């Protein structure tokens, strides 16, 4: 069994319940595009919402609501909604890498140098988002020094892979971290590792990498 299962379940449930902030929501949509196993589970968690809807005590409603809906239906015919989606903006991606559909629709800034072998690109989220999302590309065999977090963090591997405290993570896998967990990451040899990261809170600046990592905070 892959490392995916134990780490992604509660994120999947929160995503199905509509409880995740924008950055984590994007991360989970991307993960779902990559993992058939999670798509199955996610469908069940959504179905849980359907069961809840059937069993909830109905609210009191305005008796005129149905008539309002029926007249709204009449005006729908002429007033077709037209959602404009902006053309996505993307920094250069590794060769042979196809972005998962949810990422293709986002605005991603240019790559920024973070440390030797490490670069990141910020992803635009809606105003009011309480989380951040960015891509991180790390060169093969780079070791990231230990660092901790003040808030929740989740990483979805898009390409390549890494080891962290004995577990291996490859494309589609999700790695989690929070204030209790310190990362100890070693990138696989052979190719750079491209990750999507969603993050709340700040990184603890208790190492040179932590200080460097502060760069991520405001991107």
């Amino acid at each position, binding site marked *: 069994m892959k490392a995916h299962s*134990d780490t992604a*379940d*509660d994120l999947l*449930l*929160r995503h199905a*319940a*509509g*409880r995740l902030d*924008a950055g984590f*929501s*994007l991360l989970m*949509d991307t993960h*779902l*595009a990559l993992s058939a196993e999670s798509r199955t*589970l996610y*469908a*069940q968690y*959504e*179905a*849980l*919402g*359907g*069961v*809840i*809807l*059937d069993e*909830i*005590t*109905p*609210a*009191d*409603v*305005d*008796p005129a*609501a*149905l008539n*309002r*809906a*029926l007249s*709204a*239906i009449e005006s*729908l015919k002429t007033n077709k909604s037209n*959602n404009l*989606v*902006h053309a996505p903006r993307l920094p250069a991606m590794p060769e042979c890498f196809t972005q998962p*559909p*949810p*990422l*293709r*629709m*986002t*605005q991603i800034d240019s790559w920024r140098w973070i440390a030797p072998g490490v670069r990141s690109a910020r992803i*635009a*989220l*809606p*105003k*009011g*988002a309480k989380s951040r999302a960015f891509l991180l590309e790390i060169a093969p065999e780079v070791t990231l020094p230990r660092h901790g977090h003040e808030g929740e963090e989740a990483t979805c591997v898009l390409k390549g892979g890494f080891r962290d405290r004995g577990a291996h993570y490859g494309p589609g896998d999700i790695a989690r971290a*929070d204030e*209790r967990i310190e990362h100890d990451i070693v990138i696989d040899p052979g190719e750079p590792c491209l990750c999507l990261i969603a993050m709340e809170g700040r990184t603890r600046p208790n190492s040179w990498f932590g200080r460097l990592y502060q760069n991520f905070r405001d991107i």
Partner: protein
Amino acid sequence: MSVRSGPETLSAIEASNLINRIAVAKDRQAFALLFAYYFPRVKAYLLRVGVSPGLAEELAQETLLRVWRKAESFNPGAATASTWIFVIARNLRTDGLRSERPYPEPDPSEEPEQPATGETIVACLERRERLRQALGALSTEQARIIELFYFEDLPHSEISNVLGVPLGTVKSRIRLAVQRLRAELEVLEL
């Protein structure tokens, strides 16, 4: 004036037929029946997750209008009517909270979707029954945690207050509850 309205029950098959009548014939009577059942429920769900009464009424209204508009895309082999409508309401709520979503939902057309057949519809209804059983098999506390996820828009710290246990324990119990639910689902899958 507000009144409690709507039928007590609407079977998944009836609901699915009503949506189909909208899809093929833009049947207003079918819409009215769906509306009577789902509008008070969607509103109740939105109120439970902390949406203000005015906005809940508005979002519930929009949810049902989308049911009308998107009826053709409903696939009873993939989800029950209640699940489909829950997802519409959930997305409206999260999009309402964010000013705008910069990317659309994962496009279902990216995945080869199988058309609904008698078999897939029955399978979908069976999955729903299994889910109810899975929920029933959870301990009271685990069921409460799952419910807190769905209903109360609470941060972990407040779930910690509700359950009267420390924050770290809340996080691990949430994971346990989710794992337990998943295990129940897997057992029932056999």
